[in-house]
């Protein structure tokens, strides 16, 4: 089974081929090459996976050392791939979903002037992501970590031609660099205390770590994860990242890259088991992120932004699971989330595609009549994410919440906050479905773009995102068009079959994904049986009776959310503004304190979240940039250009050096 090197090698080959010949292959051959590369990688992954399935649990891993990266000396690192139960599962869903999204992009990107370049980035991304999960040591993971980050910036700013406008990419860059710093430091710390960066050796030696060290390492890796996986307080870049093409949002900013933080902490479960209170912190950050982001999701009008906040929120659930050492739950939810969130994003992409690249949901309505396939598949995604049994999201979310419930004295509180977020999730997802597919009114026919109520504080951002989306090459044939060319006489048409096929497949997976890990008896917990041998850490689900109660409560919560949303947005029993207010005010408390701490403006509405994001965080990001520039400029007068001033500098320096030395002299 040495063939595992093919798993990352195929996308790399695709990448190289497209770099060399991409422009010649053109549209759509370049896209097909890229798709085939990833699909081939999926086939290899599946073959290795099936092979491992036939082996006893302790032999289920393959290590292939391609070459000694850093040989000799005290510091040995191999360029090695490690395919075991955990990385195998990751490979399967990365390549599987990756292939589907590539296929989708073949149709979605049609006509883009940089068609082949898009697939170059996309293949490079998949290769990096596979290195990230397959690496047998921290440095390999870091390599992939940086690679996916770079591809992410490149793809976020894919449609930006002016660097001044690429603030979304910039924001992603800054937050991710903060995270990377944590990664590097933690790696050093582990290396200095254990003398290795190899995962197997680290997890084996972890019990020897001093408690403080383990906690510090865990916190630093968590810092890295908050950047990459968009958790509080570094989640702000993800909603902005939606400026990129929709397949990118689905692949990178929903299914794969943003979950790498979860993967990293799971991979290091041995260290996490020693990390003490760091785990509690992770759980709390996770659940609060879930709550805050779900709240923010309610106030968005851009369909992709709703999904973006929803992603942040679902990632929060995964970290809640990691923090309660419920790694199986985390991975389970990661996989099902990848299914339904990719589905929702691709569905949203199909809607946007049919609606002439309009992303504002207030201009949709009654689309089920025009887009039956998209409607049905997205409907499945909606039920799955809302946690309605028997769809996949129900099982994984329930597992996460049940695990949290059982996690020490604070468990019930964590569970309650989690279930609140779940209710909000059901609420905003139902809102999305109703605004898009239901309601008799076809708003693009009735409402002109200018007449939309000035609701969202992030209106400008949304419009600019929408603007760039429309600016893309699908409409390069009518160059010089304006942003909003969704005309009242527009008739939405279903997207081409390459785009619909992935939707159908993902919808199927979103329905049956729960089968991976059914809680009825231990025999049915396939995922748990599969992964647990490589995990450390104590974790137990509550007893069967409690489990049933929790499950029923969760279902009730989901139904409640859906029903509430239905009342507001479909039946119009209550004006949306009126109903939103208590909800808005509730989450605003969190935001207000947050805003006060940072010194930003707080406004008494849910939109304050968005406002905060715009003003304070953007300001902070730009502030970091302009601040460093300012420091630089302030230092420049030290360089006046006169020889004598430079000599003075040298002389002053030597006087200082001498002054220091004098303190050490013994005469």
């Amino acid at each position, binding site marked *: 089974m040495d063939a595992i090197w093919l798993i990352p090698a195929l996308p790399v080959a695709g990448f190289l081929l497209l770099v060399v010949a991409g422009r010649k292959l053109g549209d759509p051959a370049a896209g097909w090459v890229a798709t085939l590369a990833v699909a081939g990688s999926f086939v290899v992954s599946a073959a290795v996976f099936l092979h491992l399935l036939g082996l006893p649990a302790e032999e289920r891993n393959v290590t292939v050392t391609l070459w000694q990266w850093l040989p000799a000396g005290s510091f040995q690192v191999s360029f090695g791939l490690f395919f075991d139960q955990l990385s195998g599962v990751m490979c399967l869903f990365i390549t599987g979903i990756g292939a589907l999204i590539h296929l989708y992009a073949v149709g979605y990107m049609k006509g883009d002037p940089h068609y082949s370049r898009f697939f170059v980035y996309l293949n490079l991304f998949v290769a990096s992501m596979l290195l990230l999960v397959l690496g047998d040591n921290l440095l390999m993971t870091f390599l992939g970590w940086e690679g996916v980050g770079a591809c992410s910036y490149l793809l976020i700013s894919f449609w930006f031609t002016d660097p001044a406008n690429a603030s979304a990419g910039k924001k992603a860059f800054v937050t991710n*660099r903060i995270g990377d710093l944590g990664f*590097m430091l933690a790696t050093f710390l582990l290396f200095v205390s254990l003398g290795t960066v190899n995962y197997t050796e680290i997890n084996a030696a972890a019990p020897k770590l001093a408690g403080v060290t383990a906690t510090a390492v865990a916190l630093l890796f968590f810092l890295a994860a908050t950047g990459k996986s968009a958790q509080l307080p570094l989640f702000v870049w993800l909603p902005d990242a939606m400026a990129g093409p929709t397949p990118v949002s689905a692949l990178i900013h929903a299914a794969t890259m943003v979950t790498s933080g979860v993967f990293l902490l799971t991979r290091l479960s041995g260290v996490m088991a020693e990390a003490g209170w760091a785990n509690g912190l992770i759980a709390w950050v996770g659940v609060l992120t879930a709550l805050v982001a779900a709240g923010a999701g309610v106030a968005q009008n851009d369909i992709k932004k709703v999904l973006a906040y929803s992603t942040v929120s679902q990632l929060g659930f995964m970290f809640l699971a990691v923090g309660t050492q419920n790694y199986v739950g985390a991975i389970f939810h990661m996989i099902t989330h990848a299914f339904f969130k990719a589905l929702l994003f691709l569905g949203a992409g199909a809607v946007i595609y049919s609606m002439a690249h309009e992303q504002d949901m207030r201009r949709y309505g009654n689309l089920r009549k025009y887009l039956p396939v998209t409607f049905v598949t997205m409907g499945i995604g909606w039920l799955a994410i809302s946690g309605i049994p028997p769809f996949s999201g129900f099982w994984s979310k329930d597992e996460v919440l049940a695990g949290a419930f059982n996690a020490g004295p604070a468990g019930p509180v964590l569970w309650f906050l989690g279930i609140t977020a779940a209710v909000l999730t059901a609420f905003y997802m139902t809102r999305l479905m109703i605004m898009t597919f239901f309601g008799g009114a076809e708003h693009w026919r009735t409402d002109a773009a200018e007449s939309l109520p000035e609701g969202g504080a992030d209106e400008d951002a949304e419009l600019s995102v929408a603007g760039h989306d429309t600016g893309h090459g699908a409409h390069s044939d009518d160059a010089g068009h304006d942003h909003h060319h969704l005309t009242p006489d527009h008739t939405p048409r279903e997207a081409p079959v390459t785009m619909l096929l992935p939707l159908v497949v993902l919808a199927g997976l979103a329905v049956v994904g729960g089968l991976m890990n059914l809680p009825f008896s231990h025999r049915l917990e396939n995922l748990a049986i599969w992964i647990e041998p490589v995990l450390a850490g104590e974790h137990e689900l509550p007893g069967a009776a409690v489990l049933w109660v929790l499950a029923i409560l969760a279902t009730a919560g989901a139904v409640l959310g859906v029903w509430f949303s239905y009342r507001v947005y479909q039946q119009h029993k209550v004006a949306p503004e009126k109903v939103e207010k208590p909800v808005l005010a509730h989450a605003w408390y969190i935001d207000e304190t947050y805003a006060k701490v940072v010194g930003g403006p707080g406004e008494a509405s849910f939109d304050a979240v968005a406002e905060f994001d715009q003003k304070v965080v953007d300001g902070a990001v730009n502030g970091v940039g302009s601040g*460093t*520039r300012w420091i630089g400029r302030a230092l420049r007068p030290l360089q006046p250009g006169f020889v004598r001033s430079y000599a003075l500098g040298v002389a002053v320096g030597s006087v200082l050096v001498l002054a220091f030395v004098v303190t050490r002299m013994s005469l």
Partner: protein
Amino acid sequence: MTGFVAVLAATEDIPTPDVDWSAIAPNLILMLGGILLLTVVSVVRGRLPGWFHAVWTISVATAAIVAVVPLWQRVQDSGPESVLAGALVLDGFSLVVTATICVSVILAALLLEAYLRRERLGGPEWYVLMLLSASGGVTMATANDLVVVFIGLEILSVAVYVLAAMHRRRVSSQEAGLKYFVLGAFSSAFLLYGIALTYGATGSTNLSRIQAFLADTVITQNALLLGGLAFMLVGFGFKVAVVPFHNWKPDVYQGSPTPVTAFMATAVTAAAFAALLRVYVTTFGPTYRTEWQPLVAALTVLTLVVGAFLAISQTNVKRMLAYSSINHAGFVLLGVLAASAAGDAATLFYLVAYTFMAAGSFAVVAVVGRRGDGHHDLSDYQGLSRSRPGLALVFTILLLSQAGVPLTAGFLAKFYVLAAAVESGYTWLAVLAMLTAVVSAFMYLRIVVTMYFAEPEGEPRRPRIPAAAGLAMGLCVVGVLVIGIVPGPLSDVANDAVSQLVAVGR
């Protein structure tokens, strides 16, 4: 008269030291190669093709590298030796630095050939001076005596002062020459004063004797010695551009002809760091480490921070790279600061990696500068990805390597020095260094973004890429990638070289 005859008739030998010519072969090749070039050219003036000087220089440098190989074997087999009555030392460290300097001569000569042609300048002097300067650098790296260090430094520097001012038509070139010269002489005086004080305190200028003396003797009155250490640090600090002795660097790098800048950034830096390391770590490390480490730590902080922050506020790419090289010097200083075998290996690794990164980057700058060597503004890089996609890609790889992205040489170079610093207990400094790396990453990214995303004002110009410059860039990119992907051989060599860093007396 009879006395004179008696002197002539005297049979007893004047004692002369044994000269092991093979041990100093690389240095001799460089020096004689330079002198011979000058001689040959003056004899057959005008009948030599234009490319002759460059080919000669490259051959000489290659020959010197070839001469290093058997010496390396010898050192690996039978350990380090002292040569020329203890004036020089033959060890792995000096040999690797020698080879590095020769590589930078080759790269700079390739650049120079293209550059001189474009600028309509000529003459063998450029190459002669470069070879002599390299010989000075090798002397510095091999020195086993403070006086030899000083002489090597002067041979290196005096030639570079001239090279900096060699572009007759550029005012800024002469300005660079004058600034470098006045300040360089100033700082040499500091170095020399430090050597004098050290001599007074230890009774010798020979490094191995100083080391032995310090190991045997407990100095109760250490004022002289510490003063000497402080003054020498100023002298070395100036050469490697440690803040606050750095301020010549941006002006000189910007003003000098770009190939000369490339030579300075690589050969001069490597030689100066080699000498700094040998004096401070090897000689004074075992006994006086605790005295200079806090000082060097403080200087490292300043160097890292000032280099990164000032680089960001620049709009001239050449100047940006000059400031970024100050930041790099801070990283190398981390390796020196560690004062351990790992630190020495890391320093050496960084110097080799930086040679490729810096030479390649300045090669791109030289090409984009176009005739007159003046188009170095950030706006001159707008649209480069379209007019010269290959050039933009090369620059991107080199800049990413400077920023420390994995799978490039820069990542491992940074990683090794940081690991060495952490191992020696300077975790806080490693954190700070990483922060400054983030700051300078902004700057590198800014250049990359400008090349790829900025719309050029008017028609983007296609800078001509001469074959020689293209070859130099190719070598640098290959070097950066090979070191990044298969660093094994180099890190083996660095580790072997450092374990040999033992100053040996007679």
